């Protein structure tokens, strides 16, 4: 089976992020970057499927500027067969989905895997938009995925409010991944060294038949701010019973969040 994985490099989830004066933009220079959390699970799923279905191949793909190289080398170090960098610095989710759809169509994958959300825009837009423009079905935020051999279909499990759902789709299909039971693998040193020597082809939007007008950002950010800074209004001390009574009084009468 032919699998494609879409990857994005984003600020590490543990990094502290500050804002430029006036809130114009987040200050990302020097911030530690990492492959987006859920994309790692997509990559792990692809590698697991290839191991289960000998003869399968994996294409890794990343849309953006030079940062994509790191994502793709990570994927190559873990053993994906091909990597493709789509050069479009600053592309937003909608533009990235358009570009990825154009790049994936000729590759004719059976299954495209990606993360459920990118850990920078937290938008949940890319997988559904990609599937729409490929005119394929998609399944979002799955924590397990099985392929029925010879059936050209996937069977996934996903969580939703109050329970879990089994959902099936026929190939070709886009599946976005949630955190599953299999933790993402870590590349070996040998794999990492080898990945630096592997070819990393790149394509431009023009080569994919898309013009700048097709890739206009959907929204214009005007202001960034950290969420309201909380200074503990009160640290409650004293015997537990008194502290508990004081806390409940504050929640009822000062905050009005309890009846």
């Amino acid at each position, binding site marked *: 089976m032919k699998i494609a994985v879409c990857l994005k490099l984003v600020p590490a989830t543990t990094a502290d992020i500050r804002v430029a004066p006036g809130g114009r933009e987040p200050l990302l220079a020097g911030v530690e970057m990492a492959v987006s959390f859920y994309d790692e699970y997509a990559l792990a799923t692809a590698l697991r499927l290839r191991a289960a279905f000998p003869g399968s191949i994996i294409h890794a793909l990343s849309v953006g500027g030079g940062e994509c190289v790191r994502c793709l080398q990570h994927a190559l170090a873990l053993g994906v067969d091909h990597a493709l960098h789509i050069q479009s610095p600053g592309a937003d989710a909608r533009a990235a989905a358009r570009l990825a759809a154009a790049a994936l169509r000729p590759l004719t994958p059976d299954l495209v895997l990606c993360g459920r959300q990118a850990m920078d825009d937290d938008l949940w837009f890319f997988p559904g938009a990609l599937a729409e423009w490929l005119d394929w079905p998609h399944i979002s935020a799955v924590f397990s995925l099985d392929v029925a051999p010879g059936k050209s279909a996937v069977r996934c499990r996903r969580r939703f409010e109050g329970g879990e759902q089994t959902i099936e789709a026929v190939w070709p299909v886009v599946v976005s991944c949630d955190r599953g039971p299999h933790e993402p693998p870590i590349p070996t040193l040998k794999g990492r060294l080898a990945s630096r020597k592997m070819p990393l082809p790149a394509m431009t939007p023009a080569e994919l038949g898309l013009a700048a007008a097709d890739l206009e950002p959907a929204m214009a950010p005007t202001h960034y701010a950290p969420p309201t800074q909380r200074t*503990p209004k009160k640290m409650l001390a004293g015997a537990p019973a008194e502290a508990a009574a004081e806390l409940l009084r504050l929640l009822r009468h000062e905050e009005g969040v309890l009846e």
Partner: protein
Amino acid sequence: MTGNVLVILPHVGGKPKRTAFELLTVASALAQVPGGRVSALLIGHSAARAAGNLGAWGVERAYAAAVGPDGYAPLSWVRLIADTARTENAAVILLSADSIARDIAGRVAARLGGALASDCVGLRANSSCLTVTRPVLSGRLLVSADFKGPGPLVATLRPNSFAVEAPARPGAGALVPLTVKEQEKDLRVIATELANAASGCPELTEATIIVSGGRGVGSAESFRLIRQLADALGASPGASRAAVDAGYAPHSMQIGQSGKTVNPALYIACGISGSMQHLAGMRTSKCIVAINKDPQAQIFRFADYGLVGDLFVVVPALIAELKRKT
């Protein structure tokens, strides 16, 4: 810049969910700007019942599509929403930020040639654009962004983020039944089985009070204490990833980066250190209380009220105090 607003109205048991009224309040405010109208689309087998009384909430037309939830076919939902949005010439489509919205909202936006804004905590219109405010970078920043088209804006609203107020101007509230003709093409993906977690308490994502336990709870048995405090408060119990990974609580209770994002009025964190990953899932809560025996725990930096102490002493004291009052 707005125009007509279409609300995909969340409902259960023949009634709109509480979040539905947040969506309707926002919709009425948006539709006022250039004189647009609000319509609602309800999907599901009790849709018509839940659509009964929406005129008072400013709804002109309430479309009710009776598809069952058991054979959830996301592409049918996408088609229904996109077709209704076209019929209504909707400039804005509002959904509650739940797992169905996460499944289909992006696809609806792509089909209609518009844009998606997820988990909005603010949404307003002026004469030239729509402005959304939403968390990005796992809640580390809030961004405000303008949308000027082309196409409609599909926005999912984070529950408990907007005040609820019935509009001054009611709508006709006309019920429009929709018959869904299933298309072969839309059945390429279908949910075949639902396993509901039996639980009488509100969904974490919609809960107004949450009591959450972390690694400090120590075992699955002692997690009962978290549930007891939740019961005493009429709250929903939650858990950190550390507690879920250790097997103290099921994944359905997990709050944070790889779990649910919650936005209650009151969040009580018990024995939770406050990792960035956990904060990502709860930091928009209106009032945060932290109970932890480590005075250096990061959670205290994000709490409105902190209580340094052993949760096995503090939580029973809280339960006792709550029982004493009632």
